[in-house]
């Protein structure tokens, strides 16, 4: 659906999903880091109202799409929109304003969920505007909200590659399995659907590999538990600053090679 103006090649949209706390954001931010190194135009979308992708990427957020939406609703109700202006253009401008631009990548933060009242019209406009905005990038990485809602609301239906992240916990794996099943049920055809096992202890590897083999999603990468990540998390250091030769970055880099070149 999306078209990159400059070379006419379709952008790749990668979504990262899974149960909350399994390491979605670590995988997303590392993906962004690695893709940004290619020099292409990269858009990161933080679609999890409760996520910390901006912190992981080390960029401050001034305004989210949710803020823009509320602002427009408030201005409209108060009659502050000039009579001759139309809301599409205003929204377009405000969304562009909410994009956080860095040399390596741009970031769009969806932010808070809707309040009360009707959001049909504004969401309809937003969908179109974000679609147009997205068409300007070579690759888009979406850090989805935890759980399954992004599937049932079809906010991820144009996604090419879905990476489902899970930790060794039973519930994490269960959520991963449900994501796979629900995608099938709703006939959302991701070009590729992969599983990423995160925070694995070496001694459990074998057992886990057997366990996830049954859930019907191809395992594309296995990230061992890493002291460095815990250290970054403790200190609140952006994960994007993890060194290229650190183990998690190397593993995600292998994942990128596999998913983009297969």
């Amino acid at each position, binding site marked *: 659906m999306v078209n990159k103006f400059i070379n006419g090649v379709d952008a790749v949209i990668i979504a990262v999903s899974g149960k909350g706390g399994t390491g979605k954001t670590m995988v997303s931010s590392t993906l962004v880091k690695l893709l940004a190194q290619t020099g292409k135009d990269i858009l990161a979308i933080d679609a999890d109202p409760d996520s910390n992708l901006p912190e992981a990427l080390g960029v401050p957020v001034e305004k989210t799409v949710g803020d823009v939406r509320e602002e427009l609703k408030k201005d*409209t109700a*108060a009659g502050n929109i000039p009579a*001759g202006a*139309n809301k599409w253009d205003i929204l377009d401008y405000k969304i562009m304003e909410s994009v956080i631009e860095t040399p390596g990548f741009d970031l769009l933060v969806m932010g808070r969920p809707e309040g009360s*009242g*009707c959001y*049909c*019209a504004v969401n309809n406009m937003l969908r179109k505007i974000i679609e*147009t905005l997205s068409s300007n990038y070579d690759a888009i990485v979406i850090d989805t909200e935890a759980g399954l809602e992004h599937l049932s609301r079809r906010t991820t239906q144009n996604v090419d590659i879905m990476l489902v992240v899970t930790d060794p916990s039973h519930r994490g794996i269960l959520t991963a399995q449900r994501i796979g099943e629900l995608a099938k049920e709703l006939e959302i055809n991701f070009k590729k659907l992969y599983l990423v096992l995160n925070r694995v202890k070496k001694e459990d590897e074998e057992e886990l590999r057997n366990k996830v083999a049954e859930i019907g999603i191809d395992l594309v990468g296995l990230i061992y538990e890493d002291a460095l990540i815990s250290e970054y998390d403790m200190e609140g250091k952006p994960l994007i600053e993890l060194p290229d030769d650190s183990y998690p970055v190397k593993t995600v880099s292998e994942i990128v090679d596999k998913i983009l070149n297969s």
Partner: protein
Amino acid sequence: MFEDIPVDVSPMYEGERIRAANMFVELAGPKSIGAELVQVAENVEDGKVTVVGPELSEMTKGEIYPFGIKIEIQGEKLETELEGVIERRLHELCNYVKGFMHLNQRDQIWCRVSTEALEAGFKLEHLAKALSVLFKEEFPIIESISVTILTQKEEVEQFLDLAREQYTHRDERARELSDEDVDVFYGCLMCQSFAPTHMCVVTPDRTALCGAINWFDCRAAYKMDPEGPIFEIEKGEVIDADKGEYANVNAAIAEKSQGTVDRVYVHSAFGYPHTSCGCFEAVAFYIPELDGIGLVNRDFRGETPLGIPFSAMAGQCSGGKQVEGFTGMSLEYMRSPKFLQADGGYGRVIWMPKEIKDSVLEFIPEELRDKIPTEEDANSIKEIRKFIREHEHPVLERISASAEEEPEEAAEEEEVEMEESDFGEGQFVPVVTAPELTVPAGGGVKIIFKNAKVYAEKVIIKRK
């Protein structure tokens, strides 16, 4: 046609965004000032392009500059009324130029030039040239056009003053745009996933009841997405201008509501009021005891004088149902000159929450402003009656006028009123309030009470 312009000019570049990482300079936008203005003028030198202030070649990479686009046009059939329409095309046409980003309109524009374009030899002069060619192509009534690009701060500041004056004039005109001035209304089906038989009718004098889109927004939406949920309705035959009934609107609603609703009055709460999905910002409700109308908005937390809160009322008249005496609306519609005009407009309104009264105060006729009570003045029918009598609300004339016509009935009504005043003492409690209430009856008869209120001294609930 664009041989002397070093970058591509084509509609395929519409929607192009230039990332900060790929940008040479930013023009206008949130961190600077800028504006665009198209004006009809005399003695326009056709094809003239001027750049006042530094050209791109004199700018520094990564910097932000003030920016103005001033266009003068001349043509036998050109009128100043067309300026706004022509100016609106600037956004699209600027975006035809590859490597030039343009967002929004008026004094809220935001532009960027890509590094790639600069390297190809692109100048602002080329933008001006492209615009003069594109505009003449799009609007053959333009006989001559001159384009001036401003990048010098003082010049842009001066230009802003001039431009803002023009925008104000235009907004005044746009506010005046009424149902009579246009040939096309719009239908909106965005909420049909919730209310499959509901369609919003959007006219210049009536915004969609969610408040989110007006006639101008619909025009833009239809243009951007003709297959989308917003579509044109040719106005066609006017059946009743006062009530706002149109043959084509009726036909459209009959089709889109799968035959559930086949008539609609755009400007009345009676007869065939506009249906609601449930998204409305406010509801107008009939108060039969006083033959007046109350208004309540979504954010109002208390009970309305009918004894029920907004949420309960919303439940009764949403979902695409046409319920006489109730109609959903946007707050903006309360600023419309045609606001419930068939029912008497604000002359019929006898209650509204203070919050909305304050926000639309200047649109309420001056002589009525202190005659309409809010929750601070009255919270029951009895209190409203007292308030509007004390303040001589014109709705009282309606009651006495009908009294003159039908003296007998009036006497009866008076009696009812007296009795009802007793309710206030606490002997009687309202049991049911419903816009429509069907009572089971035998003998092949169905009894329907419209706008019914059932009061009882005692309610006994017995297990069978």
